[in-house]
């Protein structure tokens, strides 16, 4: 049976919503194609008694099985990257040969997913589209162009990142079989020396006072806000559109429909400062 692997990513408040959304779409496609969905859950140690909430959460959101990528060597850096988790993911791919690997389109995935794809010799579809209607699988690239359409499932392995907000999570069963993947964690070729918290935010179209923004744009922002217009495309950034017409702004991940975008922006900036 074909396997669809979904890499689950942990944030400061638990599993990232986009990981659950990717898992949900994997569930829908797998049901249509008759595939098995594995949630890949990197963990430095196997969960102890009472620590299996994450596994249950993956089961409830569509995983048939949860593969724990356990290894004490998984380094605890500020963020997942190929150098820290790549070998663990590749070990899972070797043990559970996939037809498809999905992960949320996060900054971590931008580092990890293309290299996993390269190692597998797979198609790589960043921010791709995935659907299965009447047993027919359709994959599209980030521009919406069909790249692979197959009734039997893809002939080649596909690695795809799933944009946040594109799919809704699903509800599955209450339990999932647990599989341990003996992951030989990478000895990070680069080792973290320091990590400084810093929100890299870019505002297009207005500032906290609702005035047009000015000054040099933040290099490689993590959050790109478009006030009353499109958010600037920025690789690796979450794009948010705020305004009365924001809901129709294509290309944004999130939209906030507000007749008072300046006030909304100020609320977001306060939250960014931690207040």
């Amino acid at each position, binding site marked *: 049976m074909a396997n669809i692997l979904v890499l689950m990513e942990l944030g400061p408040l638990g599993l990232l919503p986009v990981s659950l959304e990717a898992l949900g779409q994997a569930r829908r496609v797998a049901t249509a194609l008759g595939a098995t969905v594995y949630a890949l859950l990197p963990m430095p140690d196997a969960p102890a008694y009472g620590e299996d909430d994450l596994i249950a959460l993956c089961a409830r959101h569509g995983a048939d099985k949860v593969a724990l990528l356990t290894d004490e060597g998984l380094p605890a850096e500020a963020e997942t990257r190929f150098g820290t988790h790549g070998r663990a993911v590749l070990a899972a791919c070797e043990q559970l040969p996939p037809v498809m690997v999905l992960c949320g389109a996060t900054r971590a995935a931008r580092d990890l997913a293309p290299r996993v794809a390269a*190692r597998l010799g797979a198609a*790589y579809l960043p921010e791709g589209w995935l659907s299965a209607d009447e047993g027919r699988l359709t994959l599209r690239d980030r521009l919406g162009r069909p790249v692979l359409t197959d009734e039997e499932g893809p002939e080649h392995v596909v690695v795809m990142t799933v944009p946040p907000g594109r799919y809704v999570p699903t509800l599955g069963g209450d339990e999932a079989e647990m599989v341990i993947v003996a992951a030989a964690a990478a000895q990070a070729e680069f080792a973290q020396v320091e990590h400084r918290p810093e929100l890299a935010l870019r505002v297009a179209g207005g500032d906290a006072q609702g005035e047009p923004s000015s000054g040099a744009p933040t290099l490689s922002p993590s959050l790109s806000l478009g006030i009353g217009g499109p958010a600037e495309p920025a690789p690796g950034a979450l794009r948010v559109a705020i305004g009365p017409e924001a809901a129709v702004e294509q290309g944004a991940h999130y939209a906030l429909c507000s007749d008072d975008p300046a006030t909304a922006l100020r609320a977001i900036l306060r939250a960014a400062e931690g207040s």
Partner: protein
Amino acid sequence: MSDTEPSLPRIEGAVLVLLDAADEGPLALALGLGPVIALRAGPPEEEPLLRRALAVGAARAVRLWDPVLAETDYLGLAAALAATARTLGARLLVAGDGVEGAVGPAVADKLDVPHLSAVLGARWLASGDEGAERVLEVERRTTAGRQRLRGPGAAVLCVAAGGAAPEATASPDGNIEALSLYDVGLSAAELGHRRWLRAAPEATVVTRPQPLCFASAEELIARLRRDGVLPRG
């Protein structure tokens, strides 16, 4: 490298830049790390990119081309670029981290060296021991901050998009070396099989989906916190 692999004259300690038509940030970063070899996989019409690299201080400009490179996917292109890097003897590569960001990591995989994405800056650390492997210190963007790392000098650095362009300091009239796939030990047949991954040029562009809509700033902020972008409240 084996005796049978092709090679070209080399520059000791050279940094190979995979030129990006849309972003000169990688070129600017590389110029601060050592003598630069600028590489572009493209037809003769793209030589102005290489002339620009020579004008800002690149020591050497190389153009690799075969028509199959216009048809292959990220991995086919990466195979060609990695073979060129081996032929030129370059151990440190600098690439762009653009919209798809796939070529740099794939080149690193072909060369079996580490890579880092979202790179903001890099510098060599002084080594007191002559002959010891030099250590590279790199700063990169994470979702919630800046990360500083140290690692080996054989790597691929994928530079965050939007960096400043370097200023012209030299004449752009230097020689541009033209290489074929044969020159780097490859054939078109080895790359052509990757055509199946590309979207058909005539494919209809469909309507893009609506973004996920929120009714209030509070709901959006809650989601951004769960995404790890905004700090916990």
